[in-house]
């Protein structure tokens, strides 16, 4: 398995050619970045030419706030660790009114994990979704039927639209849910809560009454032990 894996990047380069924006190998697996315009084409090539007959996993990723920490660790500060808790920004610590709105750049990505049963290999394909406002990418349902629910989930959680999907409905959230909960600008505590209203005699929705609270701020420490490792392990490409 290990030997084959060592060859996989080369075969990928041969097969995908210019379609692949980047191909890199880390101890944790081989990744190929492809453009959204050639997403389906690359997947078909991987399936037909490289023998990846199974789509094992597909998920959306929201790269908003990637690599941003909430508490400064580079220098001595007058702010103690606990002050980081009151910092603003970062996942889960804002309410709906204070959510980050001005974001630019390629925020969303779709990541597919492929498995070749015949060659016993795995491959990760990533495609950055071009438009942040209306993220859309072509659907893989015609290539692998197993993409169906994975894409519905990614649509539900991130609002990524899969063009050509036969049945792109919400999957996991409640009937009538508003928003896409796994986006980084969606508050961890949510926007609405339900309770039984004795006067109306039914269950009602109301704005959430919990204060957003984070006990541990996000911290990034550059650790010399991982110096070489993180050089190419970086996933933002």
């Amino acid at each position, binding site marked *: 398995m290990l030997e084959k894996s060592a060859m996989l990047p080369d075969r990928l380069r041969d097969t995908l050619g210019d379609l692949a924006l980047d191909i890199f190998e880390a101890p944790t697996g081989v990744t190929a970045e492809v453009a959204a315009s050639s997403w389906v084409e690359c997947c078909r090539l991987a399936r037909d030419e490289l023998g990846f007959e199974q789509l*094992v*996993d597909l*998920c959306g990723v929201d790269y908003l706030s990637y690599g941003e920490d909430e508490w400064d660790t580079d220098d001595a500060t007058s702010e103690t*660790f606990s002050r980081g808790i009151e910092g603003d920004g970062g996942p889960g610590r804002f309410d709906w009114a204070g959510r980050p709105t001005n974001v630019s750049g390629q925020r969303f990505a779709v990541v597919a994990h492929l498995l070749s049963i015949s060659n016993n290999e795995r491959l990760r394909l990533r495609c950055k979704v071009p438009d942040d406002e209306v993220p859309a990418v072509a659907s893989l349902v015609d290539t692998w039927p197993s993409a169906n629910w994975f894409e519905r989930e990614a649509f539900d959680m991130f609002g990524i639209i899969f063009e050509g999907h036969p049945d792109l409905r919400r999957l996991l959230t409640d009937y009538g849910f508003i928003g896409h909960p796994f986006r980084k600008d969606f508050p961890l505590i949510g926007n609405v809560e339900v309770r039984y209203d004795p006067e109306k005699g039914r269950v009602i929705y109301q704005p959430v009454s919990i204060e957003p609270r984070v006990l541990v701020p*996000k911290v990034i420490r550059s650790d010399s032990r991982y110096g070489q490792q993180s050089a190419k392990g970086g996933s933002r490409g």
Partner: protein
Amino acid sequence: MAEIRNYTMNFGPQHPSAHGVLRLILEMDGEVVQRADPHIGLLHRGTEKLAESKPYNQSIGYMDRLDYVSMMCNEHAYVRAIESLLGVEAPRRAQYIRTLFDEVTRILNHLMWIGTHGLDLGAMALFLYAFREREQLLDCYEAVSGARMHATYYRPGGVYRDLPEQMPQYTETPWTKGDDLKRVNEWREGSMLDYFDAFSQDFYDRVDEYETLLTDNRIWKQRTVNIAEVSAERAIELGFSGPMLRGSGVAWDLRKKQPYAAYDEVEFDIPVGTNGDCYDRYLVRMEEMRQSNRIIQQCVKWLRENPGPVMIDNQKIIAPTREEMKDDMESLIHHFKLFTEGYCVPEGESYAAVEAPKGEFAAYIISDGSNKPFRLHLRAPGFVHLAAMDEMVRGHMLSDVVAVIGTQDIVFGEIDR
């Protein structure tokens, strides 16, 4: 003549055979299912998002609550993903303990599955027998971690602690005393490994007993043979894994093909089916219990002969012991930092899969170098299998829907996440 037309039927979410909170919208032509539309998400807790708001260590407990009948296998995937990002590897003894408990978990899961699957299809007695053995194994969970189900026993870098030297015993109560007490404590005189020895010697006969109840049972066969057949090619296309794939005749098992923990050093066979129907999947899972028992015996033997550490010695990741903290300032600082801030994981991404009892369970972690996972995605086998529900039940009778839910081994903790 009266006009005949299809009608829509609502199955669940509160239905004893829905194995949790599955809501199925069934379009029926008489008693034949024309279309099934599973509505899931009633148990959605946003585990993935919750994990993104916490340091790595604090999410291990969430993994138990995903597939809540195969707890430690879920932990294993998550812990392995973190370990591969950190570039650490658990000591050999910890790997064997993980192998041991993965197989205990597989038996636990399959016992739960055969009990409820049987119950759904009209075999009442089996449930009681299966839960008797399940209880014996849950005692091991409790002895090793303190919790019967949600163990949080696997940690990045090893396991929480070594197996106990003394298996906990029952104490006397007004209802259990004298000979009764002696009988329930019979296996518990020695260490946990002795207990496993006694259990695994006994368990082959138990599986045979289950089989006498079902395998040649006329009703059982009528309910499962030729129900929901899936061909090998289609099973691969649909993304099946685990017993669902092997039942269709594809000899694919991550424990053999992409070995992790100590699976490359133990002997076992992969059972495969031929027809890909519910009956074949039943046979595959029954044989898997025997194979798991075989692995348990080998692990017990190895663990007896090879004492050693069960956790790596790296205080940047692993909390120091209580004793060390009492008189060592460095340990105290490490402890404080680990439990307030956690540890930073180098930037990168990792997809770690394990052969969970239901199929390929995997944790996909993207790290941006911080102390919390930037993105955690959990690949649940049941999610993929349930997606194929529509295809599997089309053209079958309403009562077969229950057989298909059973054969897919649906657990909503992992599907809804």
